[in-house]
């Protein structure tokens, strides 16, 4: 039974809206719903292009609704965390008065028995509107629009961007070879795996030979030296983004382990300023003290387990013009 790690990835997107979606979103803050004219049709939500031919539509907006008629619906008995309501509700195609295409949105109907084709519905507006489709909390039965909480008014400026904070949680299996490699690092050992077919040795616990595409079992394990030579490196200047913890330029180095053909990639350097890193520099592994937290992940590259990085040994540099080509 494999071990699983759970990780949550968040994507805090800022989306530019453009002239058509932007106009729609700005109008939402004014409690108005806009469609766009397309021949005899009025498309809601408005599109920049004819959905059939892809030709650009003139920016000829038409106010529609806000009252509309349910054309079709389904009932959501158990909402997800992403849904607009936290109790059972309907998703429905709502043909807003004056529109020729239906808007897909939620209807807070109380029970599925109250939903039917032809049902008249009106929006429940959010009190504070920012220019997102969920400025309409949902639609409610009847022909009277509602507002949730205090109405703080329309947007002072045209809305040009919207936030969309996506977040997904995953459970991924950790290869057994990764776990064994992390465990060996606690004893300050760098574990390698030797391919029985091609004899190449791999570090980092990947668990298979990418050349021969075969899995490498525990019988393939070998101990590798914890001293080596920097073959190449990059200085990463951190760009600020949500979740970025680095603030200063930092190094990721490639280390060729002594007496082997094994290069470990993307390694941090310790007690070595970025502007002093050199190709050919001699380095030794730095191990975390037992009290320090171990990385339990199974991600790509970098140091692993108790191996936290590499520091200079003080030995003379290795002079070899081909060294720089060894990044794997």
């Amino acid at each position: 039974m494999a071990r699983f790690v759970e990780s949550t990835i968040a994507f805090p997107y800022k989306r530019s809206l453009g002239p058509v979606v932007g106009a729609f979103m700005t109008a939402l803050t004014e409690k108005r719903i806009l469609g766009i004219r397309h021949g005899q049709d009025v498309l809601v939500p408005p599109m920049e292009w004819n959905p059939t031919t892809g030709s650009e539509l003139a920016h000829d907006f038409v106010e529609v609704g806000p009252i509309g008629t349910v054309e079709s619906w389904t009932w959501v008995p158990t909402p997800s965390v992403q849904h607009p309501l936290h109790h059972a509700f309907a998703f429905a195609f709502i043909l807003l008065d004056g529109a020729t295409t239906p808007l897909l949105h939620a209807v807070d109907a109380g029970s599925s028995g109250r939903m039917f084709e032809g049902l008249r519905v009106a929006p429940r507006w959010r009190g504070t509107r920012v220019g997102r489709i969920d400025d309409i909390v949902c639609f409610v039965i009847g022909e009277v629009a509602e507002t949730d909480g205090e109405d703080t008014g329309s947007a002072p400026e045209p809305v040009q961007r919207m936030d969309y904070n996506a977040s997904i949680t995953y459970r991924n299996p950790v290869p057994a070879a990764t776990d064994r490699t992390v465990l060996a690092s606690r004893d300050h050992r760098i574990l390698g795996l030797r391919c029985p077919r091609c004899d190449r040795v791999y570090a980092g616990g990947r668990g298979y030979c990418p050349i021969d595409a075969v899995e490498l079992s525990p019988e393939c394990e070998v101990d590798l030296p914890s001293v080596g030579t920097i073959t190449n490196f990059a200085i990463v200047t951190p760009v600020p983004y949500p979740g970025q913890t680095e603030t200063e330029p930092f190094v990721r180095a490639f280390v060729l382990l002594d007496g082997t053909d094994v290069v470990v990639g993307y390694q941090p350097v310790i007690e070595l300023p970025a502007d002093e890193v050199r190709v050919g520099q001699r380095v030794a592994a730095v191990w975390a003290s037992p009290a320090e937290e171990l990385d339990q992940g199974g991600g790509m590259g970098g140091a692993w387990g108790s191996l936290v990085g590499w520091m200079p040994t003080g030995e003379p540099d290795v002079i070899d013009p081909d060294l720089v080509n060894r990044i794997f």
Partner: protein
Amino acid sequence: MSAQTPGNAVSRDIAVVGWAQTEMVRHTDKSETQLLMEVITDALAQVDLTRADIDFTCLGSCDYITGQAFSFVTNLDAIGAWPPKRDSHVEMDGAWALYEAWLRLQEGDIEIALVTGSGRSSTGDPTLIYPMEMDPYFLAPLGIDPLTFAALQARAVISAGVADERSMAETAVRARGKGDVDALLATDYLREPLHRHDVPPITDGAAAMVLATGTRARQLVERPAFITGLDHRTECHNPSFRALDDSPSTRIAAQAAGLGDAPIEVAELQAAFSHEELLLRKVLELDGNVVVNASGGALRSNPIMATGLCRIGYAANHIFRGGNRALAHATSGPCLQQNLICILEGPS
């Protein structure tokens, strides 16, 4: 602009010569790379080839499902990276990887291509992942999920008289080879009008397929499954602007692939929801003489990113076993947004 339909212009003989799929399970302990390593080995073994014989690979997978940026780079470990290979990737079902490999083989300078589709759906919660792939302005912020889209299409298909809840339940029972229609119809709705039996399982798995050009294909196997028509078409991304009781993109792709040129004996349709099979049968005008989804289809196992490629595999099996002409269909996007039709024929 040329009026010619590209799908008609098959200039070379290209055939499916073998394929394999992993065990299809609700939840696997294996990584996607491990699944691919195993299934590629199995597919090649069928035709006595090794990884060194492959001239071109195209892998179909989805980072969103794997939860890892550039997950297809890790998957490359499964193809044998030496000697260097011509390689490509599609963020789509393996059926579209096959489309790209088929195009590449048309160039005539190579003979063997390998395509895969792979996905571990159990890694995340499909209900939460798929809404993020939808229109980011009007759909994603409301969390509109695959079950909701399918339910709305099912209602449209029912309203149009193409299906009803009973024929949908019958479809599900036939696909899974188990269940009692009346008992199933008495169960609660999952998303009205969909019951649980109308909905596909969550499946982890992968498939790999070997393609070869004419002469080489005939050397490798007795009855290659020649691709005589292949076309895919798409519709507007937002279901608000589509007729959900129809699938015009399927119809156009089928015409371009030459479906009407001769009778087919079997059809494998990527219908994850029971009403989709009934709609596709109507759009493709499949009569009672055509055996549809004998494999059980996506209602039996639904390894996202491989489900469409498996349809082509099962259709190829029909040719391998002596059949003459088969259709495979693959789809992508909400409510059958994009559709691919592949016609396979035995050697003449």
